[in-house]
């Protein structure tokens, strides 16, 4: 019973970290259909910004977090406007090659600027403590991640379904030329969406850093996990990503409690099974 509760709690916490890191890619790859393998690099930029602001400049975490996220969004918007927009119409292979090259470039740049060491984000006392759940303790930081994950999921779903921007985005992706003739400013929509994707990546980089520590190879190290979540969740389905992240997180955690000698086997078997049964995403038929 105790073990089951532990699996549930740690599974949700780990799944939410996966979701928060993956949700940005769900926007760029899923909604915009742009194969963005430099997603991890954007998360790294956000995380590094927060680490440097809190540790070197002694900013408050609650101030550093939005600044880091907005900074990542700005860098994302700039890159989109200058370079990446020329790739939308190119083949997927070209997108893959370009963005993976960009990731390698950013890894080398980070290594040269900040060195190979792990970067830690200084947490405020409120988050650094542990919360007593009665039968065990949980780091307070995980509660923030869980709350942030739920907020992002709800916010994204509402934006896509209910707002004019969501309609524009779906129109721009499905039929850019028609959308443009109808007077939808597709360039602005694309640029803003990519910036939002980058911002969410940055948010994931900051909030996920407790489990996935920031270092130059961050950009590639966790890319597989993130791609798995988006693929299992289904292209463009943010709720699907949430369900995928939570179920995969719980499976991975359960295997750590019950059968750790098998490594990550169950995680990837579950991925294969879900993809076989629901190739278009968990929540789509």
């Amino acid at each position, binding site marked *: 019973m105790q073990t089951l509760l532990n*699996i549930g709690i740690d599974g949700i916490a*780990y799944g939410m970290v996966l979701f928060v890191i993956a949700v940005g890619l769900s926007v760029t790859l899923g909604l915009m259909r742009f194969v963005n393998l430099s997603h991890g690099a954007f998360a790294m930029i956000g995380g590094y910004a927060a680490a440097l602001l809190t540790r070197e400049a002694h900013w408050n975490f609650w101030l550093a977090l939005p600044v880091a996220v907005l900074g990542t969004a700005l860098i994302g918007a700039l890159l989109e406007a200058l370079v990446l927009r020329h790739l939308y119409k190119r083949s997927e292979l070209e997108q893959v090659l370009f963005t993976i090259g960009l990731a390698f470039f950013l890894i080398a740049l980070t290594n040269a600027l900040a060195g190979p060491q*792990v970067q830690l984000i200084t947490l405020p006392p409120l988050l650094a403590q542990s919360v007593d759940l009665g039968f065990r303790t949980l780091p307070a930081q995980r509660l923030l991640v869980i709350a942030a994950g739920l907020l992002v999921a709800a916010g994204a779903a509402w934006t896509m379904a209910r707002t004019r921007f969501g309609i524009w985005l779906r129109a721009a992706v499905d039929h850019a030329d028609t959308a443009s003739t109808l007077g939808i400013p597709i360039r602005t929509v694309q640029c803003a969406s990519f910036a939002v994707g980058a911002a969410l990546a940055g948010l994931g980089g900051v909030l996920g850093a407790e489990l*996935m520590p920031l270092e*130059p190879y961050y950009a590639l190290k966790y890319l597989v996990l993130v791609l798995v979540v988006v693929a299992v969740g289904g292209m463009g389905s943010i709720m699907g990503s949430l369900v995928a992240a939570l179920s995969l997180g719980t499976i991975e955690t359960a295997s*750590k409690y019950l059968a*750790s*000698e098998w490594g*990550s086997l169950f995680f990837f078997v579950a991925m294969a099974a879900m993809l076989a049964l629901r190739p278009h995403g968990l929540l789509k038929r």
Partner: protein
Amino acid sequence: MHRFARQWSAAASALLLAASFSASTEAQTIKVGIVGPFSGPFAQYGTLFKNGAEAYVASQGGKLAGKEIEFIYRDTGGPNPGQTKTIVQELIVKDKVDYLGGFVFTPNAFAVAPLIQQSQTPTVIFNAATSAITDKSEFFIRTSYTLWQVTVPMAQWAAKSNLKKVVTAVTDYGPGIDAETAFKSEFTKQGGTVVESIRMPISTTDFSPFVQRIKASGAQAVYTFLPGGPPNLGFVKAYNENGLAKSGIQFLGTAETDEFDLQKFGDAAIGLTTAFHYSAAHESPANKKFIEALKKRDPNAVANYASVGAWDGMFVIHKMIEATGGQRDGLKALVAARALQWESPRGPVRIDAKTRHIVQNVYLRKVEKVGGALVNKEVQNFGPQIDYGLDK
């Protein structure tokens, strides 16, 4: 005018060439190939080797036994036996190195054993810590440590300080399993019980499930081994956040509180117990001299097991150059190396004549805060330890 200038420059370069020829025959240079990761995720080891080795030569006035030293650095990236073999072959055949040093990863060291055996090139291991390496060629000498060497005294101490039940939690790869076996065999020999042996997959990022299992195992202490960097930080974080220290489960480790990562832990690290052969806080004139020489080379240089391994490795090479008078004579150099005994920054050490592995003191340390920085404070000296892994 133009032609005139060209003639002059040709004459000048001919002269220069002649001068450089005569210089190289008079004061011959000793070539030392340093093999390690200088790029990629493990590049910090390359930097540590470079700083340690160059600081040693600088501390001796830039020359060893009156000979100029030329370092040739070669990059292996990560664990990559095939590439390492090619690199070392090139160093031996093309660059004609007199000595080799470095090596972070065990498979890379294994791969070059036949090459150094055939060419009789003395090779000093600065880091790779699997016992069996020095068995593979009689030209290997090791100035680092092995997991058996530091784990056996740790297990003996745990048994003596009334710990009856211990759980082991190691990363599931070669050195981790080595560490688990070493601890288990010695601790049970001393009458203790290992209640559970947890092996954590190498890709683990979320350590809380394992830490919960440690808590539930009913042990009084956890013996752990993790590779440096992110896994190390993640485990210690989970250990603290899940209140293991508070519920009285002691942390027993080896290289986990290494100086390279130590400051990153923050106050959470205070009180962590480890058994290891080198602490930057070791109080001795030799260590002071070592740290000063490092800082002179690079103010950001870190004094830890890898840079001290390189420093002592260069000491061994120094003595081998002395013994052979700078001539290439691998067998004679090895005879000298086997008899070495000196005061290292880590304390008194010697090279074991049979195993060619370094015999050194192992210390029990606790992390303390001194002047705003975390240090590994040595609280007990277990005395000189051999490599128990080779002795079996």
